C-alpha cells in the first residue's frame, strides 16, 4: 500500500465488493441480483490486477463476468416472468440466515485477526510472471507443474457439457 493511487483503487474495489455482495443477496428482483453479482466479480478482478495477477484477472472477467453471469441472465429470462418480485422472507428464516452468516464471519474474523497480520504488511514486489511462464507451468510435469489437474479439469468440463446436454434435453 505504498501509493495513494493504489489505496484509492483498493478502497473502490473493496467498497464495491462489500456493497454489491450485500445488495446481491438482499434485492428483491432476481435480475438485479445477477447484475450486482457481476459488479462484485468485476471488483474481484480489480483485486487480482492490483496483486499483479493479470492473467487471473483476465480469466475472472472472461469466464465469470462474461460467461457465468450471462448464463445466469439466460436462466433468469427462461424461468421468470419480467417484473415479478421475489416473495418476502419469513423473519424466522432471515434470522437463521443472519445468525449463520454472522457466526461464520465472527469465527473467520477471529482467525483473521489472530493470524492475518501479514495482510497489513507491505506488498512485496512479486516476481512478475508473464503468460509464457504460466503456460509452461500449466502444461509442466515437474514439481510445480499442473498438467494432471489441467487434464482432469478438461475432462470434467467435457463431462459437464455432456451432462448439461443430457439433463436439459427434452425427453
Amino acid at each position: 500500500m505504498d501509493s495513494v493511487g493504489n489505496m484509492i483503487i483498493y478502497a473502490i474495489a473493496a467498497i464495491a465488493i462489500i456493497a454489491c455482495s450485500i445488495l446481491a443477496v438482499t434485492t428483491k428482483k432476481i435480475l438485479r441480483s445477477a447484475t450486482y453479482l457481476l459488479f462484485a466479480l468485476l471488483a474481484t478482478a480489480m483485486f487480482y490486477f492490483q496483486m499483479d495477477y493479470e492473467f487471473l484477472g483476465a480469466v475472472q472477467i472472461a469466464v465469470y463476468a462474461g460467461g457465468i453471469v450471462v448464463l445466469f441472465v439466460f436462466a433468469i429470462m427462461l424461468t421468470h416472468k419480467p417484473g415479478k418480485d421475489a416473495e418476502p422472507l419469513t423473519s424466522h428464516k432471515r434470522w437463521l440466515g443472519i445468525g449463520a452468516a454472522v457466526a461464520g464471519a465472527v469465527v473467520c474474523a477471529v482467525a483473521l485477526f489472530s493470524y492475518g497480520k501479514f495482510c497489513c504488511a507491505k506488498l512485496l514486489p512479486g516476481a512478475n510472471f508473464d503468460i509464457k511462464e504460466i503456460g509452461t507451468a500449466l502444461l509442466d510435469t515437474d514439481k510445480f507443474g499442473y498438467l494432471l489437474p489441467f487434464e482432469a479439469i478438461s475432462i470434467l468440463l467435457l463431462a459437464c457439457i455432456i451432462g448439461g446436454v443430457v439433463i436439459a434435453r427434452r425427453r
Partner: protein
Amino acid sequence: MYLIPSLIMFGCGVYGFITRKNMIAILISLELMLNSVDINFVVFNRFLYPEQLDGMFFALFAIAIAAAETAVAIAIIINVYRVAKKVDISEITKLKF
C-alpha cells in the same frame, strides 16, 4: 486487508444461500462464496509465497470448476422448472423420497 471484503462476501453468500427461495438466487449466493474463496487463495499466495504460483492456479481451476458447476446446475434448474413450473426451492422437496 484484502481478506476483509472477502470475509464479508462469504458471509453474504451464506446468508443468501440460507434465506433465498429462488434457486437461481441460491446459485448466485454460491458464486459469491466461491469467489471469496478464490480471493483468499490469491491473497495467501501473494502475501506469503510471492515466488510461486500455486494459489493462483488453484483460483484458476476453481473458476473453471465453478463455471462447469454453474452450467450443470442451471441445466438442472431449467429442467426442474420445465417439470414443476416453479423455481422455488421450498416447494421442490420431492427428491427426498
